[in-house]
C-alpha cells in the first residue's frame, strides 16, 4: 500500500470534495507507467486503469514462487497455487461485499461475464414472447449480448430511454416492465457519461413489476464506488479487473447462489466436471461448475492485489476524489467557447467527463491533446445506441482515477483551448 493511502483513507467525501486543486489520491509513483513519464496526462482510466506496482509485484511473485496447475495436484506447489487462487477469490469477494465467495466466478472481464449470464441463464429461461430490457446507455457488452439473446430466443428487445441530462428515465423503464419481462440489464455507472444509476431503486422497481432477473454491468462501478453486492438487490453483477488496476484477463461475475446452482454450465472442460461418462457427464459444485479449464491464477492474484490497494485508499475517498476532479473539470471546460459537457451534475457521476466542442471532431481533439501528452478517448465508447440519442457520432471523454489530479484537468483545458484556436484561425 502506498504511504499516502493511509493518509487519505480516513478522509470523508466532504473533506475532499471542496478542494480547488485536488492532489492525486494515490501517488503517481505507485504506478510504474506514470512514474516513468511524468509529463503523461492519462485521462482514459475508464477504458483501462494503470497498474499499481503492488499489483505487478503480486503477479510476478505468484509466477516466481507458486506457479502450478491448481486443484489437481497432490504436491505442495500445486497446493500453494490452489491456496493462492482460493485466497484471491475470498479477497475479491470481500472487496465487493459478497459473503458467499463461491458465488464469485472468475472470468476474463465484464464482456465474458455478461455472455455467461446470457448463454446460461438466458438460453435456459428466455423464450418466444418474453421480453428483455436494457437501457439506452448500455455498453455494447450488455446491449448487444442481450439484443442477440433476445433475437435468438424469439423474445422482444426493449430499450429504456434516458432523461435529457443522461439518467435512466425510471418512468419509461417502469412502463416497459411486466409479467413477460425476463431480464433487466443496466450499468451501475455509464462509461460514456459517468452517470451513476440507483441500482437498489431500479432493482426494487423491477421486483415490484416483474419476475425478471436484475443484471448489473458493474465495469464502471467497482473501480470507482463502494460496492456491496449482498445489499444491492441485484441477481448478477459483472466487472473487469483491468479497470480496477488489476491485470487484463481478470474479472468476476457475482451471482445469487440459488440462480447459479440451478443454471446449466456454460463452458465444458477440466475442473467443472464431477463424473465423465461415455454418454452422460455430471457437474462440479460452485464456483468450479462455471470455471472450465485451467484457472488463470496469476491474473486472479493480481486482481486481489488491486482490490487490496483500493481498499487501502477507501472507496468513499475514491469517489469523492473523482467528483472533485469532475466538478473542477466541468467548471473549467464549461468556460471554453463551444464546449458542451454531456450528462448529469458532478455529484451524480463517477470521474467521467464526456463532451463535444462545436465544429471540432472528437478525433481531432484527441490528436491535438495527445501532442501535449494528454490521453483522452474519442469515439462512441462502445455505446453507439447512446450516441444516436445524443445526436452525435462520437464524443470526447476524459476520465479520472486515483492518480489523477488538478494538473490533469489544467492540461486538458489548455489543450482544448489550443484546439479552439487552431480550428478558429
Amino acid at each position, binding site marked *: 500500500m502506498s504511504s499516502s493511502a493511509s493518509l487519505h483513507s480516513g478522509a470523508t467525501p466532504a473533506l475532499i470534495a471542496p478542494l480547488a486543486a485536488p492532489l492525486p489520491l494515490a501517488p503517481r509513483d505507485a504506478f510504474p507507467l506514470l512514474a516513468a513519464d511524468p509529463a503523461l496526462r492519462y485521462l482514459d482510466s475508464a477504458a483501462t486503469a494503470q497498474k499499481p506496482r503492488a499489483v505487478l509485484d503480486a503477479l510476478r511473485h505468484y509466477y516466481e514462487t507458486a506457479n502450478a496447475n491448481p486443484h489437481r495436484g497432490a504436491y505442495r506447489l500445486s497446493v500453494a497455487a490452489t491456496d493462492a487462487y482460493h485466497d484471491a477469490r475470498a479477497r475479491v469477494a470481500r472487496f465487493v461485499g459478497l459473503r458467499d465467495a463461491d458465488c464469485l466466478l472468475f472470468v476474463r472481464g465484464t464482456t465474458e461475464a455478461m455472455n455467461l449470464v446470457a448463454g446460461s441463464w438466458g438460453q435456459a429461461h428466455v423464450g418466444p414472447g418474453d421480453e428483455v430490457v436494457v437501457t439506452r446507455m448500455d455498453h455494447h457488452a450488455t446491449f448487444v449480448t442481450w439484443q442477440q439473446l433476445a433475437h435468438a430466443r424469439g423474445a422482444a428487445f426493449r430499450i429504456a430511454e434516458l432523461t435529457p441530462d443522461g439518467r435512466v428515465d425510471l418512468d419509461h423503464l417502469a412502463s416497459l416492465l411486466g409479467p413477460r419481462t425476463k431480464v433487466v440489464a443496466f450499468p451501475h455507472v455509464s462509461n460514456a457519461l459517468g452517470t451513476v444509476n440507483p441500482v437498489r431503486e431500479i432493482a426494487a422497481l423491477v421486483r415490484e413489476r416483474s419476475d425478471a432477473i436484475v443484471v448489473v454491468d458493474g465495469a464502471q462501478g467497482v473501480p470507482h464506488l463502494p460496492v456491496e453486492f449482498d445489499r444491492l438487490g441485484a441477481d448478477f453483477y459483472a466487472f473487469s479487473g483491468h479497470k480496477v488496476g488489476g491485470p487484463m484477463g481478470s474479472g468476476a461475475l457475482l451471482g445469487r447462489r440459488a440462480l447459479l446452482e440451478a443454471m446449466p454450465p456454460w463452458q465444458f472442460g477440466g475442473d467443472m466436471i464431477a463424473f465423465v461418462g461415455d454418454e452422460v457427464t455430471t457437474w462440479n459444485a460452485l464456483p468450479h461448475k462455471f470455471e472450465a479449464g485451467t484457472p488463470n491464477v496469476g491474473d486472479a492474484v493480481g486482481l486481489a492485489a488491486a482490490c487490496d490497494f483500493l481498499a487501502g485508499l477507501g472507496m468513499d475517498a475514491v469517489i469523492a476524489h473523482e467528483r472533485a476532479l469532475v466538478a473542477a473539470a466541468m467548471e473549467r471546460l464549461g468556460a471554453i467557447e463551444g464546449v458542451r459537457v454531456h450528462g448529469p451534475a458532478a455529484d451524480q457521476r463517477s470521474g467521467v467527463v464526456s463532451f463535444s466542442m462545436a465544429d471540432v471532431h472528437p478525433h481531432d481533439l484527441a490528436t491535438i491533446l495527445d501532442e501535449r*501528452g494528454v490521453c483522452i478517448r*474519442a469515439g462512441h465508447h462502445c455505446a453507439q445506441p447512446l450516441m444516436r440519442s445524443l445526436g452525435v457520432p462520437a464524443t470526447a471523454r476524459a476520465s479520472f482515477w486515483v492518480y489523477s489530479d488538478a494538473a490533469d484537468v489544467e492540461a486538458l483545458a489548455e489543450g482544448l483551448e489550443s484546439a479552439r484556436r487552431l480550428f478558429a484561425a
Partner: protein
Amino acid sequence: MTVSDAQLAAIYQELILDHYRRPRNKGALAGADARAERRNPLCGDEIVLEVAFDGDVVREARFSGRGCSISQASASMLTQALRGRTRAEAEALVRQFSALVHGDAGAAGDEGLGELRALQGVARFPARIRCATLAWSALDEVLRGA
C-alpha cells in the same frame, strides 16, 4: 511530450482546415453510376462516395457523410483529384495515396498527388490513417465493383 501549437500545425495545415470548413463536392450526385459507403467503427464516421463516369473517365465525384477534419478533407480533395481521370489512373491514385499516408517517401515527393500531399503528415499519427483513407476505401470499392 508538450509541443507548440506550431508543430501541431504540421498536420492541421490551413489547406486541410479549409477543406474541412468548406468541403468541395459535398452532397448527393444526381445520375451517379456508382456508389460506395464506408464507416469507421471506431468513431462512427461515415462517408458516402458517388461517382459518375463518361465511358472510362470520371466525369464527377461527390461525397456526403460526417467525420473529423482529416476524413472530410481527404474526401473533399479526393473528389477534386478524381475528375477527368481514367479508371486506371484512379486506381493508381488510390495506391499512391495509401503509400503517402503510410509514410512512403516516394509518394511524398510525387507532385502528381497535388494538394493531397498536404495529408502526408497523417503518417505520423497511426491512429488517424484510417480517417484519411476512409473515402479512398470507398473509391476502391467503386473501381472494383464497376
